[in-house]
């Protein structure tokens, strides 16, 4: 592997980083919007958000292909207006990654916001704080451990995404070959050494992510338990 092509690593990190950033923002937005409100149809909306968790990735990929394909509703619009082609491009990999990792971020964020004591937000309002300030100074920092857990899980999920990405972005070496894709096609073409190399890389990435998350959340759990217990 002396002259290894590191494109899959770079592409995987790029796709996971972009999708995680987008998922972090929209996940927090929807979770904060919906977490404390009770309204008709809430559970239907939440089921829709969480659907990619239970569907086979190929089904998600198929749906995305219908939506973002050249004749799909969104794909045609993006191509006509912005000259952006989603299928068979790294953008397709980002979109697939967003859709499959969104439920993880949403769930973590919703749980984190639900755990923030609503009286603290009320207290802030009686002191003249705007909703925006209440969010940034109270809800966000207090929900941060849960938000960070969602962020890490989304990143790990984005890094490992395979099925939906294959359906939407395809396998184009140097363009859409993320690490999981590189492993699959290396095995298929009998390049076991190459496959092993990428397996080691992705296991190391996944392992260090989860280990760090566990260490970090335990440390914070202790701190928050102390704060609540006194």
């Amino acid at each position, binding site marked *: 592997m002396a002259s290894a092509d590191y494109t899959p690593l770079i592409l995987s990190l790029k796709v996971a980083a972009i999708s995680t950033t987008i998922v972090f923002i929209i996940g927090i937005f929807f979770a904060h919007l919906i977490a404390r409100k009770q309204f008709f149809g809430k559970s239907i909306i939440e089921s829709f958000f969480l659907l990619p968790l239970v569907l086979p990735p190929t089904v998600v990929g198929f749906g995305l292909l219908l939506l973002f394909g050249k004749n799909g509703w969104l794909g045609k619009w993006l191509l006509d207006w912005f000259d952006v082609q989603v299928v068979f491009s790294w953008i397709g990999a980002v979109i697939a990654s967003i859709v499959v990792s969104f439920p993880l971020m949403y769930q973590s964020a919703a749980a984190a916001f639900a755990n923030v*004591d609503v*009286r*603290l937000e*009320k*207290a*802030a*309002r*009686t*002191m*003249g*704080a*705007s909703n925006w300030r209440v969010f940034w*100074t*109270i809800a966000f*920092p*207090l929900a941060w451990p849960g938000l960070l857990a969602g962020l890490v899980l989304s990143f790990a999920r984005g890094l490992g995404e395979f099925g939906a990405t294959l359906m939407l972005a395809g396998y184009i070496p140097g363009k859409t070959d993320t690490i999981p894709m590189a492993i699959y096609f290396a095995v298929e073409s009998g390049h076991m050494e190459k496959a092993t190399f990428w397996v080691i890389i992705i296991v190391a990435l996944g392992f260090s992510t989860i280990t760090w998350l566990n260490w970090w959340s335990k440390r914070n759990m202790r701190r928050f338990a*102390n*704060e*609540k*217990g*006194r």
Partner: protein
Amino acid sequence: MLDVQIHKKLSHFELDVTFTADHEIVVLFGPSGSGKTTILNCLAGLEQPDKGCIHLGDSLLYGEGKSVPAQQRKVGYLFQDYALFPHMTVEKNIWYGVPKKDRPNKIDVIQQLLDVLRIHHLIKKYPHQISGGEKQRVALARALATEPSLLLLDEPLSALDEETRLQCQDELLRLHQLWEGVPFLIVTHNRQEARKLGDRILHLNNGQLIDEWKNER
């Protein structure tokens, strides 16, 4: 002068109260679940009455089809277990309600509060590092730092042990003398506490004011 008329349908009864408060301590006394906290929430703008009106001084806070948002009411609120922000130091908690642009002019006000409530030594501590009585004093300082026109206190002493409770009762009375222009509205279900603190005591049961008496201190 606070002038209140609140009508609100709650799950087990209808809350229907009318009262006023001048520059005095008015105690809302009654059993748990009689609607006391709902009244405070309506005054603070955290809940809306179904009908009625709320005047504070010359301002109409609620009524005639309008409701001033909680952020603009200038009503201080001391929550039952103080609702101090756990991730901020005592100092940051106290300054939270003072707009940044006003801070240079408010240093004296905050200093006075720290002096009166004797919490200078706590300002770098976090809420989990201080005792119940200290939390109560910090929460009072935080509520008064915004220079409210009305101070609401929801069971402010219920989380304290007997000795601290007695000390804090005296502290509240002393504080009201210093901020005598501000009506204090205190909720409690403790009869002894109501008698000690209130200039006027309103007895609430199932959402109705059933009795009112003046305190001859």
